[in-house]
């Protein structure tokens, strides 16, 4: 049976040579591919064909990889199970009765099933790490600004990064080497000299010239694949105790076993507590939904998107097109985001969420005074059964508790397999300081030892 990992299967040949020569790459269907339809898992964009390539697609092709298809996903990246796609749910290749996680579920499933060697996903609140954990593969959410977002169909700009998925840490890191770097087309890629663990970059980039120095981008002199050397001796790993309390016992057991293994290899563990994470999920959803309500306003059925017909005035036609084109979860988030930004509620929800975001950042900064990297289970639960979790949106939002703090703080994190429980994969998440990709890649590669 097909896993429904791809929305569009299409071979896009890359250059003849390069570091990814001979590799097959699945690309999440919210990343633009010139001449190949890009639906974002939505009926709204069923026939949308981008006239240009995303920067990451350019780079993957130039590195010699062959793109094998556009991977299935939760509609516009909104969901944690790849069940909200307008093109049907993807199945988890480890156990087809279960979800592959989301929203980059097609990307992770394609890799886990061997239908692609590598994949690109996007991670707004955990959408690369979650399906990587549920499918038993590796996923990296890069530091905000490391990878260009040009050509990624926006859901929540301030939170999302494109990230690699692969069967092992070294391959994921090698794909990160290819896609990272400055891009003049994306002003959110970093030009300001923030090196590994450099939390103080307020003094750089103060004039336009310094701000445009491509050599100041943290990916310029990095080699993430080489960091996958398995050497964790002397590393201090902070265990985030707040995120263990609500987790499934079977998940915690695998997590503890993986930590034992890292200690046996010479790592030291310390307990860290982050008071702010208790409010991270609420802050994340308020910010993400608010940004989504603005970003998705462009889908009006006129410039692109499914047309609602031309009777009545613009507002009626627009509202009809959007009723027809958007699925339930997308409507839910647009409406909640519109509500959170509306008169009388802005200070209560949006402003408070920004305070919580700043608090989460500060908590992480403090934690990195005591630890080189932080560890949590990637997901607090095992992969749910298909159809099991769709009816209760709040329950689904709570599943993101361990991943969303990382996006709020703009930090890098990796999910690496930590064994199985009841035949289903469990992921270990390692979080690094800003631009600390090499540190998390190194520690994650030791989990594979």
């Amino acid at each position, binding site marked *: 049976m097909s896993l429904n990992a791809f929305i569009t299967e299409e071979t896009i040949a890359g250059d003849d040579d390069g570091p990814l020569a001979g590799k097959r790459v699945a690309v999440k269907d919210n990343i633009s591919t010139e001449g190949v339809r890009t639906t974002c898992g939505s009926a709204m964009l069923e026939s*949308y*064909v981008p*006239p240009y390539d995303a920067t990451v697609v350019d780079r993957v092709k130039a590195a010699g990889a062959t793109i094998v298809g556009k991977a299935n996903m939760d509609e516009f990246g909104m969901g944690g199970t790849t069940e909200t796609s307008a093109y049907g749910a993807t199945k988890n290749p480890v156990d087809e009765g279960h979800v592959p996680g989301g929203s980059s579920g097609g990307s992770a499933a394609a890799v886990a099933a061997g239908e692609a060697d590598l994949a690109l996903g996007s991670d707004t609140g955990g959408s690369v790490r979650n399906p990587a954990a549920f499918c038993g593969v590796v996923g990296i959410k890069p530091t905000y600004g490391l990878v260009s977002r040009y050509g990624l169909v926006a859901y929540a700009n301030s939170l999302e990064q494109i990230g690699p998925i692969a069967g092992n840490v070294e391959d994921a890191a090698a794909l990160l080497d290819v896609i990272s770097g400055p891009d*003049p087309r994306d*002003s959110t890629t970093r*030009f*300001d000299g923030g090196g590994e663990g450099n939390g103080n*970059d*307020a003094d750089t*980039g*103060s004039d*336009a010239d310094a*701000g*445009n120095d491509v050599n100041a981008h943290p990916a310029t002199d990095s080699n993430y694949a080489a960091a996958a050397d398995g050497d964790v001796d002397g590393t201090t790993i902070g265990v985030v105790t707040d995120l263990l309390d609500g987790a499934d016992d079977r998940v915690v057991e695998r997590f503890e076993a993986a930590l034992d293994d890292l200690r046996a290899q010479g790592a030291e563990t310390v307990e860290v507590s982050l008071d702010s994470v*208790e*409010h991270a999920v*609420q802050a994340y*959803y*308020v910010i993400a939904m608010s940004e989504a309500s603005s970003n998705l*306003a462009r889908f*009006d*059925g*006129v*410039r*692109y998107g*499914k*047309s609602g017909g*031309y*009777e*009545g*005035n*613009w*507002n*009626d*036609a*627009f*509202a*009809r097109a*959007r*009723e027809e084109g*958007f699925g*339930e979860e997308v*409507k*839910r988030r*647009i*409406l*909640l985001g*519109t509500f*959170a930004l*509306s008169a009388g509620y802005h200070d*209560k929800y949006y402003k*408070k*969420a920004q*305070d*919580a975001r700043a*608090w989460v*950042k*500060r908590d992480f900064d403090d934690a990195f005074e005591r630890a080189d990297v932080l560890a949590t289970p990637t997901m607090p639960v095992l992969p749910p059964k298909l159809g099991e979790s769709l009816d209760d*949106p*709040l329950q689904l939002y709570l599943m993101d508790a361990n991943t969303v703090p990382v996006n709020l703080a703009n930090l890098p994190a990796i999910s690496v397999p930590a064994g199985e429980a009841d035949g289903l994969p469990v992921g270990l998440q390692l979080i690094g300081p800003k631009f600390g990709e090499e540190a998390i890649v190194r520690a994650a590669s030791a989990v594979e030892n």
Partner: protein
Amino acid sequence: MSETPVDAEDVEHVAELARVDLDDEEVDAFTAQFAEILEYFEALDEVPEVESEADLVNVMRPDEIRESLSQEDALRNAAETEDGYFKGPRVS
């Protein structure tokens, strides 16, 4: 007890602001869900005011004319066009 009870009228009002038509069934479902979700969001009231420093710097480039999409490419995904323009419904 929620400080922001949501009724069907509120949901319909927000849907109008967001330009999303909803059928009656959706209005009912969203009304119940929004009450629950917004009550959960109320935990944000406990968050202290936290000073946040701007994390990003502006990136500027000279304002030079560069290549861009052709008009034909830019119009390629529109359902209807006329004389090189998007064709849409009446504005009011």
